[in-house]
């Protein structure tokens, strides 16, 4: 490594970033060449909403006569009234803070799937998140999206998958190596010291490859996003979404990305508590679209959460853990402008256990349709992503023809 380039104070920041990428290539050998081999042009983004979004609150069935009875103050005014819902075509309305998503819906670039849930019936956040990400009704050690990535052309070398965050969520863990990106926060060593550190890590069976990938991802991110800034908001969801969009838009960039957004566990004073996460998600979707530019037309964004919440408010103007909820699909490749649902109703008989919105669609059928129809995965690969689910057919009509 003695001939690895050194950074000097006299180099400009841009030069240093270039050196970092160069140093990376020297450490890793041939991976830079792999960038040239393009995988498919379609983009797929999954946003995990941790904490369980109240689907009945985000997308309200205002035409259902039971809604006001059962939800009391959590039922927002109908479309057209002050502070009212944003209309989705006569039966359902979006929470008014979803203005960007609503504009996408109006432009046929967003659709909502209602009364949907995974196959598990756990009301534990942590079990349910694990199973949502594993793609099964039991815990697995890898995520469905990682298994799906394995079937894409040349996935490992090209780093088709990208986890936005310092850690990789279960959804993206598994046999196919994926990248991870998050804005760096502290001082950075010289490229030479990075190279020496990489050489040390190479002696460890687990850390060697992780560190090499960290260097590679940093080098790529720096050449795409420029030198990291230290602005205070750089770790906020909309900023992360914008950065993810830029990386996805690059010719040699990742094609599949995962982001996470917490704060949905609204047990108390839900009307206020949910505003922060709703605004962050709405702004983030807009930032993704802007950053993806022309690639937005080839993009599907899937927003999913571990379960819905109780149909009735609890004793604190909040909601407890429930079952079915909403999945949001956005992007130019989506057959937007519709709410897809087999509405179960909110009567005592319609509800599950006289408590939760009853699931009438399986989240796996939504994800399967996107893997098969959007990423063009063969049936065998879709089955590997979602094992033991032959009876769950891909949902029709989600994608633009």
């Amino acid at each position, binding site marked *: 490594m003695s001939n690895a380039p050194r950074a000097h104070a006299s180099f400009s920041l841009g030069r240093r970033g270039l050196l970092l990428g160069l140093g990376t290539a020297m450490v890793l050998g041939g991976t830079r060449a792999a960038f040239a081999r393009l995988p498919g042009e379609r983009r797929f983004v999954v946003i995990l909403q*941790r904490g369980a979004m109240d689907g009945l609150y985000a997308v309200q069935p205002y035409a259902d006569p039971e809604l006001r009875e059962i939800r009391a103050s959590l039922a927002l005014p109908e479309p057209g009234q002050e502070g009212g819902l944003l209309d989705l075509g006569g039966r359902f309305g979006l929470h008014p803070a979803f203005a960007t998503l609503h504009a996408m819906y109006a432009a046929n670039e967003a659709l909502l799937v209602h009364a949907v849930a995974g196959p598990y019936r756990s009301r534990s956040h942590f079990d349910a998140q694990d199973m949502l990400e594993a793609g099964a009704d039991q815990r697995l050690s890898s995520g469905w999206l990682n298994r799906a990535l394995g079937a894409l052309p040349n996935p490992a070398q090209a780093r088709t998958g990208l986890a936005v965050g310092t850690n990789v969520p279960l959804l993206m863990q598994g046999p196919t190596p994926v*990248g*991870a990106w998050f804005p760096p926060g502290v001082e*950075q060593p010289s490229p030479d010291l990075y190279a*020496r550190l990489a050489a040390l890590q190479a002696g460890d069976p687990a*850390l*060697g490859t992780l560190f090499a990938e960290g260097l590679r991802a940093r080098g790529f991110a720096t050449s795409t996003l420029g030198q990291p800034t230290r602005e205070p908001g750089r770790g906020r969801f909309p900023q992360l979404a914008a950065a993810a969009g830029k990386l996805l838009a690059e010719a040699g960039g990742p094609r599949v990305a995962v982001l996470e957004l917490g704060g949905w566990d609204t047990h108390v004073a839900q009307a206020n508590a949910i505003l922060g996460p709703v605004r962050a998600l709405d702004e983030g979707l807009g930032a993704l679209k802007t950053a993806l530019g022309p690639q937005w037309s080839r993009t599907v964004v899937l927003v999913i959460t571990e379960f819905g919440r109780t149909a009735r408010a609890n*004793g604190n103007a909040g909601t407890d853990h429930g079952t079915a909820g909403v999945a949001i699909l956005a992007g130019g490749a989506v057959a937007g402008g519709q709410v897809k649902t087999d509405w179960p109703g909110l009567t005592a008989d319609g509800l599950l256990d006289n408590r939760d919105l009853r699931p009438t669609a399986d989240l796996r059928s939504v994800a399967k349709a996107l893997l098969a129809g959007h990423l063009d995965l063969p049936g065998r690969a879709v089955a590997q992503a979602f094992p033991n689910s032959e009876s769950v057919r891909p949902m029709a009509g989600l994608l633009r023809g």
Partner: protein
Amino acid sequence: MSTRSQIAPIRFGLGLRLGEAPPEDPQAWLQRQILQPADPPPGLTATEALITQNINVVLRDEASGVARTRAPELRAALERHGVAIPDTSPLPALVRRETLRWAARRLSSPDPFRDRLVDFWANHFTTSRRGGAMATLPAALEHEAIRPHVTGRFADMLVAVTRHPAMLIYLNNNASVGPNSAASRNGRRGLNENLAREVLELHTLSPAGGYTQGDVQEFAKILTGWRVAGDRAPYDFLWQPQAHEPGPKHLLGRRFEEGEGSQEAALRFLAAQPATWRFLAAKLARHFVADDPPPEAVRALETVLRDTDGDLAAVSLALVSLPQAWDPPLRKFRAPQDYVVAACRALGVTEQRADLVIGGLIALNQPLWIAPQPNGWPDRMTAWAAPEALMRRVDWAYTVAGRAGVSDLPGITAAALGPLARAETVGAMRGAGSMRDAATLLIGSPEFMYR
């Protein structure tokens, strides 16, 4: 000196401090910390935390002229309680004092194994400042409910934690009202299941314990009435019978009569379930031995918990007697908290620079008392060892090596790894261009990432 002398401070303690010799008799060193600990450190009370929070709200609302505010009411209550209200909010200083106190203790602890156990149980019973009006309550929970019982009985810790204002507020029991109680006002206010569910799932039985949604609801009814006087005297736990759900309740088939005392009885009943012993044994073994601990190690700890009725001193001693807990090489990946504390101790960071520890926890994504969810920070390598996370580790190592200042490189090496340092690491350090780079290579070496 045996390998065990090197392993003990890394695996069970917080790492050696610069200049500290490895223990001659590691077993005796660990046992002494359980059986004859130094006096507990000073700490924060829930009352102090809650009063400070109230003063903060009063001053904030008065300064910004909020129209609908409880500030006058809160101010009157504080003054009735004899609290003098200062001109500026004491809350930021208190947050700073408590976080630095936590870090300074980890840098200089006379009982590092005991502090590791405190941190283990604080994570088991996670409360988080992310949960709204939590001020500095997690510090009070550690001081008042966890540290006093860390080598006592699990049931006592469970009761102390569950009735502590930090937990009652964090998991919303403070807002839970029996639907048929007087305080429900004809059903306008009602039950909140959050605390009941998480006690069953995260603190005692775990989902393997096989409870039902019905058990969650019944337990939530039992817990009604355990509240916090957060905005008035006594600024502490409060038993409020008007909020308690009347009538008997059934939890796991056991009947609990209404009233004060049923909460503690139910918690002690849950603490003594075999599923609870099994769950706690597996968590302890995972933390101290391996991500997937050998089943015989888990069984040994489970047996001790069952035979001693949950004696946490006995199970801690059993832990350090497990042969599997001493097996080299070290393969338990250090979570950021372990990593940052051990690095700062080896670098000789003083208590006056405890801010370096707090900054490191933020930089590496495990900020103090801000766990994202009630299940606390993960305890497996897959959760922490990711490409960008590793990059941030070495970035931080480089940063802290610069800020702490490096002069005694041999001493730092001895404290960080001693004979556990690989030849490659020692060689790379020798070839480094500066003391700072050499220390970065040491703290950034793969062997320092494990404990």
